């Protein structure tokens, strides 16, 4: 059994690509309007006025965008937007004047009156950070013709928190690093990244834990280097992290196949049999499924299928999918049932 598995694992090792490791990336630009209080200190009336100015500018420069106040979204839809990382929890909690705008193709999304007046976000798959940067930069340049940005030659774009001043740019990549975790090497990698002045956070951004070993890596400094230099640096370092994770996966297969197979088999078993599953717990097992599928070790399952499940099993998506509002206990029950159904025919190869 072990020999067979090892043979299979060795073959699969050659197929490991970065597809399953670099999940997505984002470039965000923080912008504020001159002469207006920052959202946290503004009155509801001030925020409504800013929302109106931004909406007017978007109507001219991005007429195909959907724009509206967050309060116009149903509660469940807001949760879904947050789970998909299009908007933040801070924006959800904004009582008045909070808004969002997004391109139909999902490449760009703007948060209005979050921590700053505008947070323009460009998205892309894998590590295509240049694509994400270009999308955010293009919209920013168009909006600039209509909005008076708060800017100074010395400090650049002025932001509500000095940690974002300068370019106002945060380039981040979401990476799945379970291989490094299983080898006990993740802490060293995180320490190394922090020494290179990169921020390492969980999937949910600031203050979140790296549940499921999904990490968000981003630049710490936003002042002193130009935008392209920051984007290229983060991208280059993240590519190195991906290379390290790939190397860790290969070593796992070669040197500790039992550790890997045990992790995969246990995870599949829980997902196929559990009757109650909390979100964080489900994410841990799906993380292992993701590693297994990227190595080609599970039948009838692709990495993109697991990514879809990671999204669908979250509270907002789950309730939307089932068309009902559930209590947390009911959600755990329905989540377990949903994942059991999806895992019915999945098998560990070998």
């Amino acid at each position, binding site marked *: 059994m072990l020999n067979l598995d090892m043979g299979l694992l060795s073959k699969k090792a050659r197929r490991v690509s970065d597809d399953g490791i670099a999940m997505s990336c984002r470039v965000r630009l923080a912008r504020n309007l*001159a002469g207006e209080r920052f959202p946290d200190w503004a009155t509801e009336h001030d925020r409504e006025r800013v929302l109106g100015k931004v909406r007017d500018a978007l109507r001219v420069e991005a007429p195909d965008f959907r724009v509206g106040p967050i309060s116009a979204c149903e509660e469940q839809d807001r949760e879904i937007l947050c789970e998909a990382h299009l908007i933040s929890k801070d924006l959800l909690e904004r009582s008045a004047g909070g808004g969002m705008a997004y391109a139909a193709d999902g490449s760009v999304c703007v948060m209005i009156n979050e921590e700053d007046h505008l947070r323009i976000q460009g998205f892309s798959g894998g590590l295509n950070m240049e694509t994400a940067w270009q999308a955010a930069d293009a919209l920013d340049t168009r909006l600039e*013709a209509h909005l008076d940005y708060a800017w100074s*030659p010395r400090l650049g774009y002025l932001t509500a928190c*000095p940690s974002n001043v300068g370019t106002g740019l945060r380039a981040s990549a979401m990476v799945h690093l379970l291989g490094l975790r299983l080898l006990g090497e993740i802490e060293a990698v995180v320490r190394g990244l922090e020494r290179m002045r990169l921020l390492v956070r969980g999937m949910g951004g600031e203050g979140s834990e790296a549940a499921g070993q999904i990490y968000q890596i981003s630049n710490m400094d936003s002042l*002193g280097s130009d935008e392209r230099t920051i984007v290229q640096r983060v991208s280059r370092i993240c590519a190195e992290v991906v290379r390290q994770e790939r190397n860790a996966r290969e070593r796992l297969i070669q040197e500790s196949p039992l550790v890997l197979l045990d992790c995969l088999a246990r995870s599949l078993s829980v997902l196929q049999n559990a009757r109650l599953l909390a979100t964080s717990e489900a994410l841990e097992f799906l993380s292992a499924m993701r590693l297994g599928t990227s190595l080609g070790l599970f039948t009838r399952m692709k990495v993109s299928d697991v990514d879809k499940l990671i999204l669908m099993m979250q509270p907002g998506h789950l309730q939307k999918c089932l068309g009902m509002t559930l209590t947390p206990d009911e959600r755990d029950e329905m989540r377990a049932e949903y994942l059991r159904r999806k895992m019915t025919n999945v098998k560990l190869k070998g």
Partner: protein
Amino acid sequence: MKCELCHKAEAETAIQKKVDGEDQELYVCGSCAREALRSDETLAASGPAVAPGDSSQRLSALPLMGMILDAAFEIVGRTVSFSDQTCPVCGITRSEYRKASRLGCPACYEAFAKELDVAVEEMHRSLQHTGKTPEKARALWQRRQLEQALDSAVKGQRYEEAIALRDQLRKLEKPDAGREGDPA
């Protein structure tokens, strides 16, 4: 600003203290800060305190920006006695933005420049923007600078300089003015 505990020496740093069951931030002199650290009664059970030159104390529970700003205040506070400054545009006070870790408006960067520059440099290892320049904002900034210089030249009766500045301002208003071939 005088120490809020002894009311004699100049305040050097901030500590947190429980007053009537509520955590309050007090600006105190070095001696009172050290005294507060020694006294269990004075130091709130959960209240962090920051005193200059004492690294053995409990870590401050203030947010990251607050901690960096604290360090900046220590440096700035030794040479300049600070007061609870207010931003002239949005009215937010220094202690308010420190507690919230968010500034009130873009003008706060000028109002609190002394301490913010220290904090910004600590955060980014730089104090000079080198990236994108929004054309409208750059023009507005240039215009303000010229207007201030013109005002100063007029007040100082430096009329030749004032005329040159006025001409530059006019060029900004009508970028085509003065080009060869322009109709008079």
